[in-house]
């Protein structure tokens, strides 16, 4: 099989806050359907990187090129605001660590899922509701909860609802910021299982930030390890975790094994 062209091409990316480095010299390619984890301790620059990749903040140096459905490979810096915002709510998703930041907590689960559909012009209440119900089932939430607000949901349900809300437009790329960090360990396993299944089914590319190497092991095809805003090591997940080369990665891996 011929390798596809990368969905996302990142080259020499940097973001600074005054004289403090957020991240710098970050380069990688991401292919359709590929799950990439960015691992590191807090303060390593991984969340800065995620927000910069998603263009929620403009990079100070380097480029991000994305394979748009219509225009093909395009430098995001040249994309007008209108198209960028459209990308955010159609072909991209962003799952936040705290579901309260990614959901509308006071409107029903149905409206949360339906929002993106309405944003792209769906104007049939019955149809929107039907799709929302279907997605609720796909993320293993009882369909009788369709008209309930997420404020009445458990942490795990909220996070699954956030997934459904993002995936309803069938995006090709989803950014995830520590999506399991707020969940109990018992709930995490079920959530990760579901995530792995959906991502594989829909062939979605994912960039997921985590401090938890176990999450990376379960989900990621490839792994990037960050420290002080820079990539220290990158490789296939299993290889990298089984045979870490960089001393910092070795430290991270051993601290997990010993824990």
């Amino acid at each position, binding site marked *: 099989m011929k390798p596809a062209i990368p969905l996302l091409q990142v080259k020499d990316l940097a973001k600074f806050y005054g004289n403090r480095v957020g991240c710098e010299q970050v380069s990688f390619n991401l292919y359709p359907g590929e799950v990439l984890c960015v691992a590191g301790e807090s303060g390593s620059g991984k969340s800065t990187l995620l927000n910069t990749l998603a263009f929620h903040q403009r990079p100070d140096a380097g480029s991000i090129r994305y394979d748009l459905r219509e225009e093909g490979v395009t430098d995001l810096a040249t994309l007008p605001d209108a198209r960028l915002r459209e990308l955010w709510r159609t072909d991209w998703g962003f799952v936040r660590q705290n579901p309260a930041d990614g959901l509308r907590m006071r409107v029903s689960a149905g409206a949360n899922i339906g929002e993106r559909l309405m944003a792209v012009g769906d104007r049939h*209440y019955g149809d929107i509701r039907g799709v929302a119900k279907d997605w609720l089932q796909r993320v293993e939430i009882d369909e009788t909860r369709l008209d309930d607000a997420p404020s009445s949901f458990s942490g795990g349900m909220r996070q699954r609802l956030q997934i459904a809300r993002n995936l309803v437009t069938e995006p090709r790329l989803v950014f995830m910021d520590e999506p399991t960090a707020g969940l109990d360990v018992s709930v995490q396993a079920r959530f990760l299982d579901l995530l792995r299944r959906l991502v594989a089914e829909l062939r979605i590319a994912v960039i997921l930030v985590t401090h938890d190497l176990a999450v990376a092991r379960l989900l990621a095809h490839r792994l990037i390890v960050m420290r002080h805003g820079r990539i220290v090591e990158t490789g296939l997940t299993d290889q990298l975790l089984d045979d870490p080369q960089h001393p910092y990665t070795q430290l991270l891996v051993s601290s997990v094994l010993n824990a």
Partner: protein
Amino acid sequence: MSVQDGYNFAYLDEQTKRMIRRALLKAVAIPGYQVPFGSREMPLPYGWGTGGIQVTASLIGADDVLKVIDQGADDTTNAVNIRSFFRKVTGVATTEQTREATLIQTRHRIPETPLAAGQILVFQVPIPEPLRWLEPREAETRTMHALREYGVMHVKLYEDIARHGRIATTYDYPVIVNDHYLMRPSPIPKFDNPKLHRNPALMLFGAGREKRVYAVPPYTDVRSLDFDDHPFAIERWEQPCALCAATDSYLDEIILDDAGNRMFVCSDTEYCAGRQAAGHKGALAA
């Protein structure tokens, strides 16, 4: 020193009037777009029609005939107060007759008598931004308007239907103007929304406290938001007006006694009186 001598015609100085008229011209050129303007401190409180008053003051001339209504009525205290303010500072003729007026300032209603080309209807607006409850940041709502990102408005309507089985917004019902801008029509009942569509009169909206004006020029398309399977619909009453027997007007409910007996009468007092004078007689008419 009397009030008339101490102030310019229509209270505002000519520079300020010109500034407001410039903003209004821009508003007319971009139907439904909220134009920021240098709203002045008026001698009436914010929230009591200072936006409408400034729009009226910037347009009114010595030959104009002014009508002022609140809740459809010419004789509510607020309408009386604003009318007397303009009489004091302009000396122009005032009227209760919708057809005679060249300028009509209104709060919460559009008159039942159809407006004609050449007339100007000035609305008092409390909150101009239709996206305010969904997105509190001004900088963000400006972008959403520019890019016509209005999907989130339907989230509100969706939620109404999910909860109540129907759209539960009854007044200040959001509309799309000229296929672009989402606009609040001010707190008129949705009964009046269809009158906004392709109206021959010029409709101007003034929000004094929020410092915005906007406009619907004559014959402009104005569409109320809805879903394909839950179309926009207006209020209906089971009985006609108890005074003039009208079946096509917006009715106020009036409680008659301690036993809870009630009657329904036209909110537009001028329309009702006109019909009664023409011989129409409701069940409780004198």
